[in-house]
């Protein structure tokens, strides 16, 4: 497991701060395992450091606008990470997610996702690339004329999965999100939280390596949101990398996961176990470098 919480002994934030000098920002992850003197674990951990997503000074400018939506963004996201993407509306969160999906092409810089160089990925290969990604939206985007089961099955049907596979996978996914008994309901018969669970089931039914969530709790009350977050956490524990754009400070503060903050298209903070608000000292060289670049 790459996440630093869990089996390794608790390391204080102060200890983390002393490791700023490491060349690779993520090596400290594996350092935690060193405390238990497990070399094998350390090495396997290093292997997982191949980033799932890598942005190299990526800029995205939409035609007709002077200010770019993303401005020279560089970052890496590793397998199994849970990343919050925070920032005001218009700070570039959605552009960031769209670049990962290759719904947009960067104006400058390179984007690598799952080992694919997205800048040069042929557009006819994009559909096959997207089958490795799951996406969840604030507005659920369910098909109103299909049942819960059919909504989830639709994903598999259109990528050509067999009927047998669908009959197995869909109930599994619905069970995982806690909707096992509601497969014959229609979306309008469900609560907002349940609809979002259907959307999540749809996103993960094909076992994607990466789950992108664009403000998945934006339309939900706090209690329901907590349920959704528990679900996303469970999906993350299964090994899926989760990237979640959100405005929900409570959730970010409570989860203590990696936080990437964008302001006007630039990364101003990239903090492990961060909160919604900028903390006084950025705990990562990577984040601090970005901060320095921002400074005029």
């Amino acid at each position, binding site marked *: 497991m790459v996440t630093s919480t869990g089996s390794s002994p608790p390391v204080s934030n102060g200890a983390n701060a002393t490791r700023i000098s490491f060349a690779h920002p993520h090596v400290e992850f594996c350092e935690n395992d060193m405390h238990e003197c497990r070399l094998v674990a350390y090495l396997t951990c290093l292997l997982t450091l191949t980033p799932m997503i890598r942005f190299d000074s990526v800029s995205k400018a939409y035609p007709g606008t002077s200010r770019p939506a993303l401005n020279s963004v560089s970052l890496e996201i590793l397998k199994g990470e849970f990343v919050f993407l925070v920032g005001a509306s218009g700070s570039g969160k959605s552009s960031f997610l769209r670049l990962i*999906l290759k719904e947009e092409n960067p104006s400058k810089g390179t984007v690598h996702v799952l080992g694919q160089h997205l800048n040069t990925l042929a557009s006819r290969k994009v559909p096959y690339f997207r089958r490795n990604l799951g996406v969840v939206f604030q507005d659920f*985007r369910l098909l109103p004329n299909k049942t819960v089961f059919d909504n989830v099955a639709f994903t598999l049907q*259109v990528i050509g999965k067999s009927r047998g596979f669908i009959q197995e996978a869909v109930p599994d996914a619905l069970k995982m999100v806690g909707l096992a008994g509601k497969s014959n309901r229609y979306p309008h018969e469900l609560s907002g939280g349940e609809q979002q669970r259907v959307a999540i089931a749809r996103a993960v039914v094909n076992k994607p390596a990466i789950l992108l969530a664009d403000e998945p709790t934006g339309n939900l009350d706090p209690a329901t949101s907590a349920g959704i977050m528990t679900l996303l956490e469970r999906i993350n524990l299964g090994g899926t990398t989760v990237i979640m754009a959100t405005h929900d400070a409570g959730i970010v503060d409570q989860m203590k996961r990696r936080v990437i903050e964008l302001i006007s298209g630039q990364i101003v903070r990239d903090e492990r176990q961060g909160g919604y608000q900028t903390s006084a000292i950025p705990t990562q060289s990577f984040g601090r470098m970005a901060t320095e670049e921002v400074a005029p």
Partner: protein
Amino acid sequence: MRLGLILGEVANGLRRNVSMVISVVLVTFISLTFVGAAILLQFQIQQMKGYWYDRAQVAIFMCTDVDTTGNCTQTEATKAQIDAVDAKLNSDALAPYIKKYEFETHQQAYDNFQAQFSDSPIASFVTPETLNESFRVNLVNPNEADILIESLSGEAGVQEVADQRGLLDQIFAVLNAASITAIGLAALMLIAAVLLIATTIRLSAFSRRRELGIMRLVGASNRFIQTPFILEGVFAALVGSLLAGGAIVAIVQFFVQGYLVNSLQTTTTLVGLGDALVVVPILIVLGAALAAASAGVAISRYLKV
């Protein structure tokens, strides 16, 4: 599984905008009927050309007592003049172009005239002497009539060297104009049909934009996304072209063969069912191809990634 899914989508799309589909069917029906009619007309022209050009002769009319035109001076062409023309037709210069020729006497011309105009009161006014004696020449290549005209027009006792093909060409020009008009109308209608198909498909895609968005998001291949729409357009156009094919067969069967053949009762040949059955597949392929192309272009906007 996938085929069933695609066909289900097609049925859904067709049901959702029935009125547009009906208009596509009608427009393709009418336009392809015009196309078919134009093709049939061309067939007709070719058939008539084949039939008549073989029979078309170059006639060398000799002078009679009453003629003043050409080289005539109101004197009957003499035997010597006729023999001179005959010798020229047999000469090395002209013989290679001539398949056969025969001489038509006053009496033969009169008999032919009486047979042709037996119903007409004019038949009783003509006498054998007023009708020209003539050489009737069948050429090896009917296009080379000018050679005869040039070399024989100046001969003494020759009133006129006439290429009968000239008369036929006028008829063909009329038929050709009709055919071109039909093609022009068909082209206009086909443009309308193509635009209508594109609009229908856009409408259909717009009404399914949620599904399309999700399909694109979860990685449905472009082929999978566009196939139902293209099939939708092709289906509508196919219905239209089948109707047009039926119309063409019906026109040939009931109008040409049933009515024209009886009413004209001429020796000329008319297009038959065989020709109509050649036209039908052309119409079907044309309709399907146009629909597939315009639907493909229309849907491509929704496939951009």
